[in-house]
């Protein structure tokens, strides 16, 4: 039997890795990949809490399904933005995309 804590520790570690990817990488696509890791860590948490604390109602899995949908939408729009920026600026380096930097 696996205690709940193992899942939560795994999710914490995965979230930390994703956060590092978002903060440290220069390439905008790599940043999006980091966001995906963080969303997955959150999903592990949601499903683990569902299984261990409230398996009698399906809210946990329903929330996880919503996270899937939002992640798919986020990636579609994010990558479209990246490709559009690449087409205009010939770069996907987040440091150089500073048009809106004040």
């Amino acid at each position, binding site marked *: 039997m696996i205690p*709940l804590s193992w899942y939560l520790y795994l999710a914490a570690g995965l979230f930390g890795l994703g956060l590092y990817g978002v903060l440290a990488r220069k390439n905008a*696509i790599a940043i999006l*990949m980091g966001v*995906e890791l963080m969303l*997955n860590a959150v999903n*592990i948490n949601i499903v683990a809490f569902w299984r261990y604390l409230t398996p009698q109602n399906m809210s946990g899995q329903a929330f996880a399904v919503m996270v*899937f949908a939002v992640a798919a939408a986020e990636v579609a*729009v994010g990558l479209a933005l990246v490709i559009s920026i690449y087409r205009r600026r010939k*770069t996907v380096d987040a440091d150089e995309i500073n048009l809106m930097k004040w």
Partner: protein
Amino acid sequence: MTVEQAVFLFTSFLILFSGFMMVTRQNLVHAALYLVVALFGVAVIFVLLEAGFLAVVQVLVYIGAIAILMIFAVMLTRGNATEEQESMNAGFGWAMLLSALFAFALIVMLGQWADIGAMAPALDAGRSTIEELGSALVSPDGYVIPFEVASVLLLAALIGALVVARPQKGGK
């Protein structure tokens, strides 16, 4: 150690290892492939949590769509990206410190929570969680409104992505 625990430990090692490789590789295609491994590991975790439907959706949506989309985007934007280019921010030391601190703080705080060692209650035999999830998603006293809003969100994302990524007229 039971089989379940062995599978969990192996899978979580795999997830964390490939996550680490993903955020540190210079070559973005390699990073995307490590992302696929990590996502597959998360699908295995969902199976361990007896959420079979979510495991299947994880493979279909994350590996089948999102990771492939990532790889496409990497290949479409490779033009002048050379492998030797520095792939990290100047402040990546701070990023490392901050994310390590964040994960450490999460783990410490979780360790203080009383319910942390909870064991999974057995699911009733013969109960179909997939069926329950399906009816919860479409029943009016369940999640039908978030479900419908999610479909509108996906449509908006689809149209938005098309509009944003379309070449401009008389493009430069």
